[in-house]
């Protein structure tokens, strides 16, 4: 309501205001090179390399991929483990893929050479923290639609600063041209504890840091709405606890905040964290513990 009132006042002010189109000296000819790679021990190395677009570029859709990059994965002693090769992927993007997988607990770095520019980043492949128990309270169904409460218990390692991402994944399918297409989607995770109901989200999933439960058993209680669309034929649902690096945490918290505040002219713009030297994007590791709901 407060929001409505002030938006109304603001719009009134804007409505009566004069406008002028202004030019700012934003260099049009120097796109940034963007490197994105989220790696886990469950999959082979994958790195996206693309160019940024000037803010005044009015094109929509995919960003121009960098097809002539040299992408190397290095270990913590700076020895090249693998040079990745690029190819188009099924989402019409261009991906540099490897054949090996990261190992939990190891540090890695990426070096991307585009023409005479060298981009670098480093991150840890964290060790997964297991979910020690998962309790589902189906009696907590609410009046509006189906909802369920879950308690996810895990033991936080005390000696380090830890970061987590909690996701609930549901399998889905649809029929297109008589073909059944299967997919996985994230359900929206809503913490029960208001203290955890902050901006630390990554889209539908929730990001946590261990400053409130360092070294302790922690029970993270969440609420899920639209948990099962078809109670008579329930889809497969998995609860995922990802151990993530601090880079991963900072990147996605800022990204989510930027999305949430876009369009609010009174919000301070959000700068998204990057650990890519000489470029933009993110190179960060995560490891998952998964429990499937029966």
């Amino acid at each position, binding site marked *: 309501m407060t929001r409505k009132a002030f938006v109304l006042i603001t719009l009134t002010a804007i409505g009566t205001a004069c406008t002028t*189109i202004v030019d*700012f000296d934003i260099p049009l000819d120097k796109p940034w090179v963007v490197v994105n790679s989220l790696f886990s021990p469950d999959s082979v190395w994958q790195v996206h390399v693309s160019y940024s677009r000037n*803010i005044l570029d009015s094109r929509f859709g995919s960003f121009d991929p960098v097809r002539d990059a040299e992408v190397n994965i290095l270990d913590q002693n700076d020895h090249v483990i693998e040079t990745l090769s690029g190819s188009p992927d099924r989402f019409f993007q261009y991906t540099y893929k490897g054949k090996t997988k990261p190992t939990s607990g190891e540090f890695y770095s990426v070096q991307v050479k585009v023409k005479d520019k060298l981009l670098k980043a480093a991150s840890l492949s964290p060790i997964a923290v297991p979910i020690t128990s998962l309790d589902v309270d189906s009696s907590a169904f609410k009046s509006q639609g189906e909802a369920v409460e879950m308690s996810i218990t895990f033991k936080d390692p005390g000696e380090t600063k830890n970061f987590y991402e909690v996701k609930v994944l549901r399998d889905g399918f649809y029929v297109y041209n008589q073909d059944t297409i299967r997919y996985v989607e994230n359900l929206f995770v809503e913490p029960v504890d208001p203290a955890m109901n902050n901006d630390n989200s990554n889209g539908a999933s929730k990001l946590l840091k261990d400053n409130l439960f360092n070294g302790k058993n922690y029970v993270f209680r969440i609420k899920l709405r639209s948990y099962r669309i078809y109670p008579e034929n329930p889809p497969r649902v998995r609860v995922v606890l990802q151990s993530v690096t601090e880079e991963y945490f900072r990147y996605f918290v800022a990204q989510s905040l930027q999305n949430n*505040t876009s369009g609010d002219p009174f919000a301070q713009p959000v700068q998204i964290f990057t650990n890519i030297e000489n470029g933009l*994007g993110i190179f960060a590791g995560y490891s998952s513990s998964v429990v499937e709901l029966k």
Partner: protein
Amino acid sequence: MRKIIGLLFLIILAFSSQAQKFTISGYIKDAETGESLIGATLLHLKTSSGSSANTHGFYSLTLPKDSISLIYSYVGYQPTTMQFFLKRDTVIIINLQSSTVLNEVVVRGTKADPIHESTKMSTLSVPIEQIKALPAFMGETDILKVLQLMPGVQSGNEGSTGLYVRGGGPDQNLMLLDGVPIYNASHLFGFFSVFNADAINHVELIKGGFPARYGGRLSSVIDINMKEGNMKKVKGEGSIGSISAKVTVEGPINKDKTSFIVSARRTYIDVLAQPIIRAQAKREGSQTTAGYYFYDLNLKLNHILNPRNRLYFSTYLGNDKAYAKSKYTDTYDTISTKTDDQFSLRWGNVITAARWNHVFGPKLFSNVTTTYSRYLFDISQKFQETQNTPSISEEYFSGILYHSGIRDWAAKVDFDYLPSPNHFIRFGANNIWHRFSPGVLAFRSSDEGDTTLGANPTSAYEAAVYAEDDWKISQRLKLNAGVHASAFAVENEWYYSIQPRISSRFLLSDDFSFKASYSSMTQFIHLLTNVGIGLPTDLWVPSTARIRPQQAKQVAIGFAKTYKSQFEFSLEGYYKKMYNLIEYKDGASYLNIEGDWQDKVATNGEGESLGMEVLIQKKTGAVTGWLGYTLSKAVRQFDELNFGKEYAYKYDRRHDISLAMTHEWNKRMDFSMAWVYGTGNAITLPIATYESASSNYNSPFSYGNSEATYYGDRNSFRMRSYHRLDLSFSWWKDKKWGQRKWALAVYNAYNRLNPFFINLEYRHDNPFSPGSKKFVQYSLFPVIPSITYSFKF
């Protein structure tokens, strides 16, 4: 400590017992009104010893037994000379005659308190008559907008009354009305200030070299004194302008004993717009009323008990209110539905002060004050719907209320002690009981019951003691040295602060001096604001166990010169360092009222500000005014913001020029103008978009290319420069009942489209074109003419 105090008194005693000396004391007043003339000076011509009247008009000067000649003077008044043989302590109540009564051409000032003589630096006082003579936005004279024309003071956004002094924030200004702090000095979202110029006697702005008697804010003191009320006869004045009308009446209740002044002001846009709103509502078949107005009321009573005792009571009450009410009835078949929707937005201040002045003797003056100050903001909406069918009646309601504010009770005692012409000692103590209500949202509906969100009110206690001496060490060297010690208690946490202050002047010649000052300041309260346009949602919050008090240290050096008794010239350089600043984190918005405010702010920030200010002022003659120039730089650094890198403060303004001038052609006409130029405000703009990483699985129906925006460094771009010319032409006429005046003013005379904010938008050349992205600047005020009718009787 006791030994030091004893030694100090012995030294003072030694100074004062060198010869047989007597003290001349009393009050300096306006002969016509009996109003105290704050800062009026008296000078002993033979020894060049002098003194000045304090904020209550009291003065004291101790001189040797001799035949003496004293000259009393004040800006805008004819100097008066007194010659007599001083052989005992003498009380003189001097009444100065206003220049307007004596001269054909009105002069706004005479030679008084020359700038090169005083230890004060970074201090400006603008005569209230000069403030009223300058062009006024929509015909409404505004004290804060005139102060914005001074070097070292930035205005923030277009049209705003915000003050950003020497790189400081809007919360770092101590705005005192009759000694009581005002927490939100804005009406109409910051376009007007709460100070009604008709009720004001004296305005002083201190930007640095703070005397020890002031404390609690880092960057400035704006000390505003209300008029005391005419002791001689009933007088009044008023005006009707484009958006508001005001009236002031003052006079004696008991001649030369008790006086009053009452001043009221109200906007009437809501009244004028009512017929239009009603006609529109009638067409739509509803009963709708909506509007916005603000009003304020100043009242002061002044009673002289006897020559030694005076009582004052002053109060200010002001509110802004926006409202909308809508009733609608609909009948379909046998079902009738009635809805009632009400919305209200309100904010305002109430302040009250009760004061007792007591003259202990010719050398010691005291002032005891108790004050109350409250700022409250609330916003509410109620909705009610009743549905009636032949068999059943159903009712639904919802209500939502958000309120925030701050409330202070305070008591203070101040002493002025003038043991000799070479010392002016001030000391005192004060206590403030704060209560902060940083945002509570209450929701009630027939479906979901009651919900309350937000922070609990917090109480805090602030105390301070101070002592300072304006010490004339030699004819050439004079200094003001003092210390302000303060403490703050909140949530079982105590903070203490010792703040040394010193400012000095060294006369290089009879009319040219060098000045230097150092001041250390501590501020225990913070303002959460992220747009800086005086929105009423800004929250005052205390230092807490997590949020430490703000601190600042400032040094300044400069030169002051008086030229031909008409022009004053000052050149100052300053450096200010601020610590423990807070600021909203990235993404925080004033629209977001959920959660603990402490989680939304970046803490332990540092600020740095340095600059050079030039001011050339002409206070006397038919043409008066000033030219100011500021070259400055202000930056901030927070570990949690801008990846820890230093960035330009939003109101960092490299160049700032202001020219203000009034010209009185004759007794019936005057002309005034003000021109300002400032480097554009620093802003953060998006530079690029890029592919963002995604760790989520999305349903194929929502799959899209993830896009992030790259902003670069915070505040790394500049808006277009700001400049504006305001003009005003007034003519007045004497009538049987008094005087009437017409003022024709033009705000932004050459229609400069100054930036308010910048938005990235798609712009289409024609309705069928795909459009292209452009940065679009929004400006608020084009050329705005206004006419004001005012009267005096």
